[in-house]
């Protein structure tokens, strides 16, 4: 008998606020949760992006005592808070007593990059001996996962996956695999990201960010003909994963089943770009979905499309190649609201299964002829048995996650 991995809890923090209700409200509004970025570094390009999906409410003392928080980077705090939010959401008071059977699988693209910047400033401006140990110990990519493990007493595998936009889905996939294979009883899996001003400025200089163009406001427009970049975003989302039989035995509410996860690579991609290997990626996705019952049962796609010109085009081509002559299911694009932060897509995928509306920007879409469809507007479909989450990373990596609604 196949052992099923299920999601029983969700903790999410983002520019939309704390928790699933705040995220659902933001998604329903359809408006990007963007705010002005501090451009005091002086490195923002003239006429470039001014906005990011930033967390404005930074008081996390409900989850982290101040004495502990002062020893953490912002991403560490976000990960700990989201993890501590997810456990009670799953009806779990503590995992410390069973900590050896609890793993952490966390994705991040940039890690605690603000501390990296601070440490490098010390090294280059004040000299190497001025480097503060705190900035070093809290700039390493795996510190958010380690701080979360310490905070909740999770002594199982502690894995940080750094695979840009595909990382969050890979992290959940690895966590689900560990549960299924019996290496852990529970996993906290998800993603964390921060967007400090200098990173935002550099992403803008790289041409990655949405920006004002003539009469067009600065907005991410996934799949839209006028899209000109992403809305950088920050936040943390953690899912609680466990075996379905164990969850049922303790009377837990099941949010979703992890039916399949997989990945592939597009070797035609440049180091910072998306490639044109949609046929190969589509082949991998099709084969993976086939092991879980095929495309017929997929009632919606919660896409990682973000407004990136070539990224969205590749995503569209992959989906169209997989569905072929069949009509595509509704394709939802939560990054239009949460910004480019994979944890938002993860959490939105769960909410879509519950029927949450994921409205797009409050402006009429313009179909990109190369894409041929627009992001879905309005509520999730009535028949939302299965949702496919997608994450195509610049650089070539791709990951997918198929979630099934628990009836």
């Amino acid at each position: 008998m196949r052992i099923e991995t299920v999601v029983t809890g969700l903790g999410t923090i983002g520019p939309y606020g704390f928790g699933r209700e705040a995220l659902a409200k933001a998604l329903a509004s359809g408006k990007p949760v963007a705010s002005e970025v501090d451009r005091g570094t002086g490195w923002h390009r003239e006429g470039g992006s001014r906005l990011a999906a930033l967390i404005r409410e930074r008081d996390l003392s409900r989850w982290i005592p101040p004495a502990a928080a002062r020893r953490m980077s912002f991403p560490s705090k976000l990960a700990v808070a989201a993890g501590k939010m997810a456990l009670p959401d799953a009806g779990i008071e503590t995992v410390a007593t069973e900590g050896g059977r609890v793993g952490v699988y966390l994705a991040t693209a940039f890690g605690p990059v603000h501390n990296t910047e601070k440490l490098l400033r010390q090294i280059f401006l004040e000299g190497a001996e001025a480097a503060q140990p705190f900035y070093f110990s809290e700039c390493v990519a795996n510190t958010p996962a380690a701080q979360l493990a310490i905070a909740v007493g999770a002594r199982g595998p502690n894995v940080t996956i750094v695979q840009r936009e595909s990382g969050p889905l890979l992290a959940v996939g690895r966590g689900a695999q560990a549960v299924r294979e019996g290496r852990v009883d529970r996993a906290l899996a998800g993603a964390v990201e921060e967007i400090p001003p200098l990173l935002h400025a550099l992403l803008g200089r790289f041409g990655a960010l949405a920006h004002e163009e003539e009469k067009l406001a600065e907005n991410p427009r996934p799949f839209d003909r006028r899209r000109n970049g992403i809305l950088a975003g920050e936040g943390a989302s953690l899912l609680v994963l466990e075996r379905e039989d164990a969850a049922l035995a303790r009377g837990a509410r099941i949010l979703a089943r992890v039916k399949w996860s997989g990945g592939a690579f597009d070797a035609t991609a440049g180091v910072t770009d998306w490639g044109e290997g949609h046929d190969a990626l589509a082949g991998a996705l099709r084969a993976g979905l086939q092991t879980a019952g095929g495309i017929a049962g997929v009632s919606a796609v919660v896409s990682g499309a973000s407004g990136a010109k070539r990224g969205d085009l590749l995503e569209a081509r992959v989906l169209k190649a997989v569905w072929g002559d069949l009509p595509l299911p509704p394709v939802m694009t939560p990054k239009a609201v949460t910004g480019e932060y994979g944890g938002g897509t993860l959490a939105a995928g769960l909410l879509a299964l519950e029927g949450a509306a994921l409205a797009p920007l409050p402006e009429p879409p313009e179909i990109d002829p190369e894409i041929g469809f627009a992001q879905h507007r309005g509520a999730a479909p009535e028949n939302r048995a299965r949702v496919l989450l997608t994450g195509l990373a610049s650089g070539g990596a791709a990951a997918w996650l198929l979630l099934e609604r628990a009836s």
Partner: protein
Amino acid sequence: MPRVDRAPPSPRTVVVSGLGAVTPFGWDTSSTWNGLRSGKTAIGPFDRFDHSGYRTHVAAQVDLAHAAPRPRGKPARISLADRYAVCAAREALSQAGLGGGDWTRRAGVFFGSSTGGMLENERYFEALLAAEGGPKRRLPPMSILAPQQYNAPGDAVARALGIGGPVQTVSAACASGAMAIGDALRAVRSGEVDTAIAGGSDSLCRLTYAGFNALRSVDERPCRPFRKDRAGLSIGEGAGVIVLEPLERVLARGARPLALAAGEAATCDAFHMTAPHPQGAGAAEAIRAALVDAQLDPGDIDFVNAHGTGTPLNDLAECEALASVFGERARQLPVTSTKSLVGHLLGSAGAVEAVATVLCLIAGEVHPMPAEGESDPAIGVQLVLGSPVKLERARHALSTSLAFGGANAALIFSRPPRRNDRDAD
């Protein structure tokens, strides 16, 4: 002797079919093995960057004068860590006999890195800071900065080889490479991929050099793991790559399995960000779980390639972990530390040490550590010092990686059975 519960048999026997390495001893496994056998450390003066303002002045750097050719791509977009990774991967593939054909479609890359292209990032950042003080906006091209992320070495390998399967980079500090190999083993076992290119790559950079110095974790002299006068680690650079495949595929194409990838496990101390659990509880759990995964008992392990950084606390905690798992036998179990010779390769340490462990199994001997240093009565293991120890009948070896943030990983490799093993047993 403590025993462990056995796990159900694995569906697929996974073997190592190729090895690749770039280390301070050279740009291939042959020069690396010769260096390891010599017992003479590659740690010493270095010139990768100006370290005159730093507290310490030794590291183990790869000799760029004898570098392998650059992979294709714009030079600015290929970091040093990428070059190490691609070079080691090509060597491993060549040994595995994987050339043309469509094997890449069902192949994945599982890589570890702690800093990716940080060395190149630093050059960009230095220029940015210099510009902040003067007339602004004259920055180096973004193409230098943008590709240098944690995932860049693994992506570079996948791109260079035309991989079509999953690509995943783990960044779990000093356990990254070992964890990546562990994930690769799971992926081959489960049938997710038929071939896994697994390993890690990191280059020297100022961030880690200054950071570990700030923690007062760097020895002013070449590191002396497990010795009484040990005073910290020495940082190194390089890459290690192994090719993992199901045994039947390797045999079917007439290739030679170099070792069985027998078991893996990972745990977390959940104790402290920078200090190990004093009794090595998390490390011991990782070793026990790897033994279960490998269907072995502690008594089956013939030698240990330890994490062995040379920091006072880590080495002590690791010995506690070994004593906890192996009991009294820990005192007779040969233990070596590859870091004593090539330095601490951070995100690639676990990968290079996995390569070293397999090379030891193939050669039937354990590479030594330098003989320098005083013996420490608190260290209750049998160190291999000065010259290699012959272990021709060694069947199973353990490699441990214990990282920053309390992340632990253990890998077990086994020598493929030989015709005379029946007599030996």
